[in-house]
């Protein structure tokens, strides 16, 4: 009976992220449009886009290999599983115990690995440019991400996200310099990993400046729908990650019952909205950086993560 309810709650969580992810992207787009004094498309537009893409036929290049065809499903599955591992409205769900933060990083890394390979598969110049840029960013973002994980693990004593969230939600933590550094570093990594301004521009039409978009330029139809959906999910995942670690307020503890879950879900949606608003605000107020500046940007994230980790070795109270 307990197992069944566990599976049920976990299932609800997985469906919830699936349902909320396009809405979050639609919300960010809407806010950005309003900040630019445009009316903007409805917040539900991403759902319609996904539906439209799913109905459309797939146009494949003649020389596309099996890898090109399976990559959209692999990346989507990997990101969805990763999203299922992050506590959203409640900690300690069934899957939370099966894998830790390092596994999440690895899942996202393998999704990107396949996408980068697929970008080069057809042999167009844009795919190659996109893949090479994406891998350059990833090569810098992943070490930074791992250092952030270590920093949090040193504070909470575990790489298990549920444990970390539970610990940080408790009153033992207080204000910590190392956590502040980890938060800034994590935001920087999240911007880079989600192809947001200032690293990449998700709304550009300029082929030559694209990173993520250039890599998936050859995709169409349901394949593109899967990749887009994966990108929506990834944004949700990172925001959930930041929320559950740094603002774990009102997050439901495992087994506290439906009411606590409902409160947790409400708080979660509020957190998503606030984060989406801040993201839109930040993206409107800054220009995209030069491609060769990205290493410096992510290098700063790496250094912050490293500094936070080292500070914890000096004293556990930082």
């Amino acid at each position: 009976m307990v197992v069944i309810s566990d599976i049920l709650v976990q299932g609800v969580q997985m469906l919830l992220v699936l349902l909320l992810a396009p809405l979050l992207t639609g919300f960010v787009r809407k806010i950005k449009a309003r900040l630019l004094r445009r009316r903007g498309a409805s917040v539900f537009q991403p759902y319609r886009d996904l539906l439209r893409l799913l109905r459309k036929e797939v146009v494949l290049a003649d020389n596309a290999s099996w890898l090109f065809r399976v990559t959209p499903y692999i990346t989507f599955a990997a990101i969805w599983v990763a999203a299922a591992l992050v506590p959203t409205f409640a900690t300690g769900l069934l899957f939370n115990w099966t894998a830790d933060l390092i596994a999440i990083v690895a899942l996202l890394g393998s999704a990107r690995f396949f996408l980068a390979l697929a970008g080069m598969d057809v042999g167009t110049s844009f795919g190659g440019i996109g893949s090479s840029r994406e891998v350059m960013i990833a090569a810098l973002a992943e070490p930074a991400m791992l250092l952030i994980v270590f920093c949090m693990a040193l504070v909470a004593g575990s790489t298990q996200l549920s444990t970390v969230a539970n610990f940080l939600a408790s009153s033992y933590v207080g204000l910590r310099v190392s956590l502040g550094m980890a938060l800034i570093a994590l935001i920087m990594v999240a911007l880079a990993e989600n192809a947001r301004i200032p690293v990449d521009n998700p709304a550009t039409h300029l082929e030559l400046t694209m990173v993520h978009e250039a890599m998936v330029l050859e995709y169409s139809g349901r394949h593109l729908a899967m990749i887009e959906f994966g990108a929506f999910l990834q944004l949700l995942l990172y925001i959930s990650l930041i929320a559950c670690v740094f603002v774990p307020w009102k997050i439901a503890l495992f087994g506290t019952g439906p009411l606590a879950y409902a409160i947790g879900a409400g708080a979660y949606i509020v957190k998503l909205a606030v984060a989406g608003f801040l993201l839109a605000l930040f993206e409107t107020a800054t220009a995209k950086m030069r491609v060769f500046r990205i290493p410096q940007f992510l290098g700063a994230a790496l250094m912050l993560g490293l500094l936070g980790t080292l500070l914890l070795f000096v004293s556990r109270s930082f």
Partner: protein
Amino acid sequence: MAALIDLMLKGHKVQQHGPWPRVVVDAQQWEFAAGELQQGRWGLLGLWGEPSTVHMAIMDPFATEILVVSLDCPDRRYPSVGRHHPPALRLERAVNDLFGLSAQGLPDTRPWLDHDRWGVRFPSGDRINGPSQAMPYRFLPAEGSGLHQIAVGPVHAGIIEPGHFRFTASGETVVRLEQRLGYTHKGVEQLMIGASLERAVQLAGRVSGDSTVAYAYAFSKAAEAALELGAPDRAVWLRALLAELERLANHLGDIGAICNDASFALMHAHCSVLRESVLRASGSAFGHRLMRDIIVPGGVIGDLDDAGTEIIQAMADNIRLRFPALVELYDNTASLQDRTVDTGVLKPALTRQYAAGGYIGRASGRSFDARRALAYPPYDSLSFEVPVLSEGDVNARVWIRIREVEQGLSLIDQILNRLPEGRLMTPAGDRSEAREGMAIVEGFRGDVLVWLRLRDGRIERCHMRDPSWFQWPLLEAVVENNIVADFPLCNKSFNCSYSGHDL
């Protein structure tokens, strides 16, 4: 040092060519002129063909003397200018495509406008039926280890005009950029032949949508020069008002679009609002947002009433109020400055060699502005500054536009305050003999040149040279050693015309 006057005295002066002289020269003097161009003593304003003649407009950069030299070439051959003076290369390739006049010694004999899609060779010359060439277009080679090619266009992801760009890159660094243009060739000059003045000025206004006023203005001035016709005072001032409104709208649009290419959408949104306000005011005052088909030979059709004056005045006041905040936003956004400063530097020497006009020339130390250098009315009695910078980067090209917006607002004020009353049109008399005229007008991109010959009130030959002819090649030079991802920014800061160039 030879002056243009010497060349003029050696040649045979053509009657009925105004306002500057045209002389027919022999091959030796043609070569002499090419040599002087190579030495950088004169600037090339244009080179165009007729079925068995080539013409070249030359400018003396100091005295701003202008001269058209013509060379008859009954055997369809003439000595190449491009061999000595690279700015003429593409013009000579275009002359060959359209008229079949081949430049002897031209280092680059590939077609330019002719994409082998017309079904006829030399459409303005001998009209030989059949496909033009069997050979595919060869791009210039760039060899070396680790180099790869990136082909962009002609169809782009954004809604812009078509043009093909072939990059050779080493990783992210551009080693060579080669342009391939001509996709929007419409044969406007061919359509002009035999057209009445009314139809011809409409055609001129459709060469390039964003410069419709500048083209109609230049065409009308050239036609008036040929017919020795003077536009009435009020028309002269209204024309300047139209030209300044067009410049204002385009500069505002450009400033925003350049920032948008650095993914700074905020500037784009605000500048678009201002640009739209200019277009709406123009639409209310003159009945057409882009002010098309208002300037005609002899004057203008469409007057400005008091309501229109008020609308334009209110628009200008509104921009004067809101624009400084945008300039401050541009200047104070560090992430944006990081993209524009030192990106795509155009060296002043190249600008001088190509006699590049407009914001591109003025951002790289070349102060030429036809409104000032030629001082055609009413600009001779208006006070304005010609902003010049020497940095030559994207930032400088933005700043030139910002300064010109400010100057444009002041000019609009002056024109509205001093707009004389009176007639709008001078009727054109009947002129049956051949008469030739030429005009240079400062459009928002730079100097638009129109040369034409009228006979029996109809166009016998009309050539329109867009400023982009001397700006496109510079873009190739500017992008070298920049990174691939910065090309859109450089390109937008140039904002060359495809349509005006391809004609």
